[in-house]
Every structure is written in C-alpha cells, then in structure tokens.
C-alpha cells in the first residue's frame, strides 16, 4: 500500500466513524440501502420485533411498528423506479431507516420515482393527511371494495393503513434527481406512549 492509498483508507474509516456518530445522534437503529426483497422484509421485521420484545415495548406499539415497516418495505419493493437508465426497469431499490427516540419510533423510506408519477402520489398523500379517523375508515372501505390488486400485488391501501395505524400524518418530500426522476422520502411516526 503506498502513502496515497493509506491516506484514502484512513479518511474512509473516519467517514465510517462520522457515519456511526451521526446514526447515534439521530437514534437510528436500522439502516439499509439496496434492493428490498421479501427476504429482507422478513429479516428486518423479525429483527425489529425481537429488539422491541427485548426492550419490553408494549404489544400495541410492537404491532404498529411491524405494520408500518411491512407496508413501507413493500411500497419500495413494489413501486421504486430504477434510476439512471432509459428503460426504467422495475428495480425495487431504496433506503430504509428505523429510528427510536424517547417518545416515538420513526420509519423512513427513500426511493426514486418517475416525475410523471409524482402528481398522483402527492394527491393521495395529501388526501390521506387531510382525513380524520372516520373519513379514513370510509376511504379504506371504499378502496378495499372497489380497488383491484395491482400486477405487483399491491392493494393501494398502504398509506391509508399507515395513517390509520399510527394516527399521525405522513411526512414526505420529493427531491429532484434529474429531469425524469426524483427521490421520494417518506417518514411515518409511531408514538411509544399508547
């Protein structure tokens, strides 16, 4: 290893330490970037479940966190678009984070979406956020009755279900990547005091 390489190596390791500190500061207990498969979904949910059981989190909170994680992970695996190619082959990659604070858990996902899909996505999120508990129940019933399972096996109920289970609005943000795609960030929050 020459001098230059050694220096690079050290700076990389320093980056890892900064990354670690940053994770601690934001109370992140799980972070992943890559393809979200069914196996990954199962592994993350069971890992988080056993951690919550160890920490004696209430059953209600455990169930809600589990619900939100599954819906968020399945959203990525079913909807994330590929970035950087011309043919937009379905790819199902994204970033997934779970943070645990004093008062709440938060589950955050990030994935690329085609800009053409953003208006519908925003409309749905705004609608879900604007509804109260009863209105959400009505929307859920309407969608489950009238909606059809998509080719990828989604029922179009994920966002509605997350808000119903958590009782909290979904925080979201779209960051432009280029003219065709954006990065879609979504955070769901689950209160620990039920």
């Amino acid at each position, binding site marked *: 290893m020459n001098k230059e390489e050694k220096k690079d190596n050290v700076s990389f390791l320093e980056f890892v330490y900064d990354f670690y500190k940053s994770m601690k500061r934001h109370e992140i207990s799980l972070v992943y970037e890559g393809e979200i498969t*069914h196996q990954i*979904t*199962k592994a993350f949910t*069971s890992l988080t479940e056993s951690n919550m059981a160890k920490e004696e989190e209430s*059953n*209600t909170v455990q*169930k*809600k966190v*589990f*619900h939100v994680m*599954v*819906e968020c992970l*399945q959203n990525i695996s079913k909807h994330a678009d590929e970035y950087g190619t011309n043919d937009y082959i379905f790819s199902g990659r994204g970033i997934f984070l779970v943070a645990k604070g004093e008062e709440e858990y938060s589950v955050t996902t990030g994935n690329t979406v085609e800009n053409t899909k953003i208006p519908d996505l925003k409309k749905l999120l705004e609608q879900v956020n604007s509804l109260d508990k009863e209105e959400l*129940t009505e929307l*859920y*019933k309407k969608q*489950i*009755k009238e*909606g059809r*399972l998509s080719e990828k*096996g*989604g*029922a179009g*109920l*994920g966002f*509605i*279900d997350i808000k119903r*289970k958590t009782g909290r609005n979904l925080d979201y943000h779209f960051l432009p990547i280029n003219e065709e795609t954006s990065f879609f960030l979504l955070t769901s929050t689950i209160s620990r005091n039920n």
Partner: protein
Amino acid sequence: MDVIKIKGTDDTPSVTLDAASNTFEIAGRSLPEDVASFYNPILEWLDKYHQSPNPKTIFNFKLVYFNTASSKLLLDILMKLEDLSKAGKDVLVKWHYSEDDEDMKEAGEEYADIVDVPFEQISYT
C-alpha cells in the same frame, strides 16, 4: 371434496378447509410474498364448495396480523361466504381477536360492515 391443509409460517397463515370434518379456518400471520398465488387456491376451493356445501358452514378467522395486500384477499374470501349465505345456506363467520388487539377487532367490525353475512366477534386472552 379435496382438503386444503396448509401449515403456517412466519409470513403465511395456516389454512384448513375440510368439508368432511366441517372445519374452515385461517389462522396466524399473513404477508405472503405473492398474495394472489397464496390465496387463489383457497378462493377456487370455495367456488367448488359452493356447488355442494354443508348444511352449516362456520368459518373461523384467527389472524394475528395481515398486511394490506392480504386484506383485499380476505375480503374476497368473505364475499364468497356472502354468496353462499345469499344462496340460502347457513353461514357464520367467527372473527377471533386477541383481547388487547384493538386494530384486529376494528378490522373485523369493518369486514362485518362491508359484507352481508352473519358475523360473530370473539375475543381471546
């Protein structure tokens, strides 16, 4: 009639559909990788059962967790039971939920609102 007997896993429910012993039950967790391919044989079985049903059908749901994709297929099952009931057969859905699981109780209430079939909620500890 054929018997469907599926052992539950950590992401698929256990299923028993046995006309001869009059046992109809779905229990456990449901978040299959491919909901349609898991539930289609069950729906097809119910279509066949519709042709020569037992005098009384008690269908037990004992789920502890299901994802939204499964919720749609569970409704499809309930609609088959509704059809059976509308055809004049004696049908009863028993929806079991853990005493401390408010969400599972609510899910049962919502299904009971959507489908027109005798529905009984049963809590367990």
